[in-house]
């Protein structure tokens, strides 16, 4: 019998942990459990982030944790086959499909496919016990320094997630699709922890899809750490498509070594409260990071993208492009930071944030920050908030295109600047299609998601 309790306030999470310490430690190796206490202490001191936390200035998470929800410290076997009830309708993606349920690696994954020799793709807890030499070297090495309470909560309480390891000189052609499903009879807080390690001169692409399978209240606190060895290429694409009442707090930490390339794109199509923390550290020379994102929000959705890129060594390049299209009462937040460390000369870092407000009541908050401690650098940032360009609209209408269609064309072109950079062609085409339908007001979410599974 699994003991589950109802908890309300964030502080009580700490009590929950202390009361069930054995259960949280159960099955995890010492290095995972050892990190829990320090993180819990930091979480306890900071509490659930509110507006008084400068990093959460525009996103108050306290109300989010006011609802009743349960936390499940053990894997629960599902009575139904998730492969049957969830079918991603991107069939051409032709990828490895890995399911995770409420933050746990699904026990009956059967569409993983064949990987080249040496690749490890498994549950994190499993890998931590089976391959401690790899996991211990990287586990909590990049997230530990974070002051973010949500990151610390994850380190303190998460037990499982995806572990993905690509050995030196291995290229995985097909993208790996990871589907994070929230599906429970109860309102649930899920804590998922992932670790990706790419060996030297390797290549892989991971597509994260966040879904909810019913209308319960879900909080997903999903943290990924990623270590990219020299000369490797890693693509991380996140497609967030949860129902309007769900909360998605996703953190992504990347450590990018010499000559390595990181390409990430976060597309938020739907969700209730979404917070994306992306922290990239360029620690080897000539490393490059592309960090892009697109948000389409309506109703009362709240989407916060919090980006931080550290240029720790000379000769690295990075580029950020984030766009928001906000309708109804939605709120968009962008906080992007470029930090060029002392002596990180010849850095080139660019940041761009463009936002369109479609309704009288939508709001946008943007905070594009530069912290530059070296002089021989090229850095720039730009941010705009506006409406659809009337001149462009006139141009199209003068050519016989109806107003509605013209507006759609302009908005789509605006969004496509982000989508066109996605390096997985089938995913890009699929997202372009989804975004277009979303903009047209046809309910865009993947067909097998929430809206078709309401029963």
């Amino acid at each position, binding site marked *: 019998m699994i003991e589950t309790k109802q908890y309300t306030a964030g502080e009580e999470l700490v009590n929950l942990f202390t009361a069930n310490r054995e259960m949280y430690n159960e099955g995890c190796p010492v290095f995972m459990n050892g990190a829990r206490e320090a993180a819990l202490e930091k979480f306890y001191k900071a509490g659930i982030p509110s507006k008084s936390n400068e990093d959460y200035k525009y996103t108050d998470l306290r109300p989010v944790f006011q609802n009743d929800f349960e936390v499940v410290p053990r894997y629960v076997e599902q009575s139904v086959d998730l492969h049957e009830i969830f079918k991603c309708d991107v069939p051409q993606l032709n990828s490895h499909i890995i399911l995770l349920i409420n933050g746990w690696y699904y026990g009956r994954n059967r569409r993983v496919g064949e990987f080249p020799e040496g690749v490890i793709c498994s549950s994190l807890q499993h890998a931590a016990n089976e391959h401690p030499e790899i996991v211990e070297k990287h586990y909590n090495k990049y997230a530990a320094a974070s002051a973010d309470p949500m990151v610390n909560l994850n380190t303190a309480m998460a037990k499982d997630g995806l572990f993905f390891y690509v050995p030196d000189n291995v290229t995985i052609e097909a993208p790996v699709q990871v589907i994070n499903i929230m599906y429970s009879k109860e309102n649930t807080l899920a804590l998922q922890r992932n670790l990706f390690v790419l060996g030297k001169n390797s290549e892989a692409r991971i597509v994260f899809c966040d879904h909810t399978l019913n209308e319960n209240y879900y909080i997903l606190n999903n943290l990924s750490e990623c270590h990219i060895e020299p000369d490797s290429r890693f693509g991380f694409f996140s497609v967030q498509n949860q129902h309007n009442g769900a909360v998605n707090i996703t953190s992504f930490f990347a450590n990018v070594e010499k000559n390595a390339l990181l390409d990430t794109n976060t597309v938020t199509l739907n969700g209730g409260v979404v917070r994306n923390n992306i922290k990239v550290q360029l620690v080897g020379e000539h490393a490059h990071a592309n960090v892009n994102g697109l948000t389409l929000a309506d109703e009362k959705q709240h989407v916060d993208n919090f980006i931080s890129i550290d240029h720790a060594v000379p000769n690295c390049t990075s580029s950020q492009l984030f766009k928001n299209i906000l309708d109804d009462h939605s709120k968009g937040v962008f906080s992007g930071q470029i930090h060029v460390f002392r002596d990180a000369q010849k850095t080139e870092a660019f940041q761009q944030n463009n936002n369109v407000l479609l309704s009288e009541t939508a709001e946008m908050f943007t905070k594009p920050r530069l912290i530059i401690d070296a002089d021989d650098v090229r850095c720039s940032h730009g941010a705009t908030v506006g*409406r659809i360009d009337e001149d462009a609209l006139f141009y199209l209408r003068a050519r016989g295109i109806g107003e509605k269609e013209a507006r759609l064309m302009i908005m789509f072109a605006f969004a496509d600047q982000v989508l066109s950079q996605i390096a997985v062609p089938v995913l890009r085409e699929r997202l372009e299609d989804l975004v277009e339908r979303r903009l047209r007001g046809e309910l865009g979410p993947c067909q097998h998601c929430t809206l078709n599974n309401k029963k």
Partner: protein
Amino acid sequence: MTEQDKILEKATSEDYKFGFTSDIETDIIDKGLNEDVVRIISAKKEEPEWMLEFRLKAYRNWLKMEMPNWAYLKIPPIDYQSISYYAAPKKKPQLSSLDEVDPELIETFNKLGIPLEEQKHLAGVAVDAVIDSVSVKTTFKETLAERGIIFCSFSDAVKEYPDLVKKYLGNAVPAGDNYFAALNSAVFSDGSFCYIPKGVRCPMELSTYFRINSANTGQFERTLIVADDDSYVSYLEGCTAPMRDENQLHAAVVEIIAMERAEVKYSTVQNWYPGNKEGKGGIYNFVTKRGICRGDHSKISWTQVETGSAVTWKYPSCVLLGDNSHGEFFSVALTNNHQQADTGTKMIHIGKNTRSLIVSKGISAGVSNNSYRGLVKVSKRAENARNFSQCDSLLMGDKCGAHTFPYIECANKTAILEHEATTSKISEDQVFYCNQRGIKTEDAIGMIVNGYAKEVLNKLPMEFAVEAQKLLAISLEGSVG
């Protein structure tokens, strides 16, 4: 009798109640801050009850606040109890001729091109009673009085124009606005009050007068400028001459109220002591400046040249309340050696068709840190708001930092907001080009920096623009090579 003399006499005569006069310098209040100190300050200044209430309210607010720590600054803890909150302005030692003045100071004066008589005044040399500046001052006063312009010290204003002060004080910066503003509201020493009546265009830059007056401004200064309907005034605070002051902490407040169609142009040149090359000493400059464009079609324009102070924490802001009102902010902030600056502006769009423009030029040299921090906020009913912000940073040397923290909050879809920022350094090509033409590297850097800052310097009143250019070059001395 000058302002300072009056205050000094008043204070000393109170202390020595038996008609005993003395010219001994006295710090009247012991170090430390409590409610009694606030009461004593108010009593010393013979303030009415409402003024005391204002101070006490601010003091009680201040007690509940914590010193803000969000700025990108490293400030050692400040012991607010080790500061004396009321001291009659000390008389500077009177020197008999310029020969006795620190030659370094004289050299700086010469580089800035400050006229000889003014040099004497600024350096504290005893000056003849009939020198030009004094007579000029009197003439100015007459001209201003003719037009009904009120321009006097804050203490005088409280006594002579209590209705006006009462009506406008705390409008733009309420007593509990922020930590430093609350501290200032509780203990402010003195400052200036300026009222421009309806339809009057102030015939001169209030700068010139103020500059002569400004040699002895206090530690907690308070300025209130009210421009009534259809009026115009240009005001210059500060001085290009180096300001050596013993007080380490400066927390000033400036409030501007612009009524219908009024325009206020406020320019600052700040050149407080920045500390020595090792970062020892220097002034902490924590200033709250805010203007309200209350009337329709009103305009407030801030221009600042910040070259001094060890730590600068300053965000001159505009609240664009009236429809079609207009806010502007032009800034050059230069940091060298161990200086730190976190400065920028806030533009709060509330009225319809409001516009704002932000041009910020940061220059960092040595091991200094220079941050731009600005907020552009568009409220729900601010239809057709328009903002353009540009923040450029220039880095000189590989040990300094230039940072940008813009905040944009938009709640109206008709708004068009743009923000641009770039970071660059002086290219070797540019310096080489100048060298080839016989211009020394140091002069070349000065030229390039001035070209970079020209957009802002052009906004300064003419005479100060010239001095400010030289000031930039002087502040950068020793940072090249």
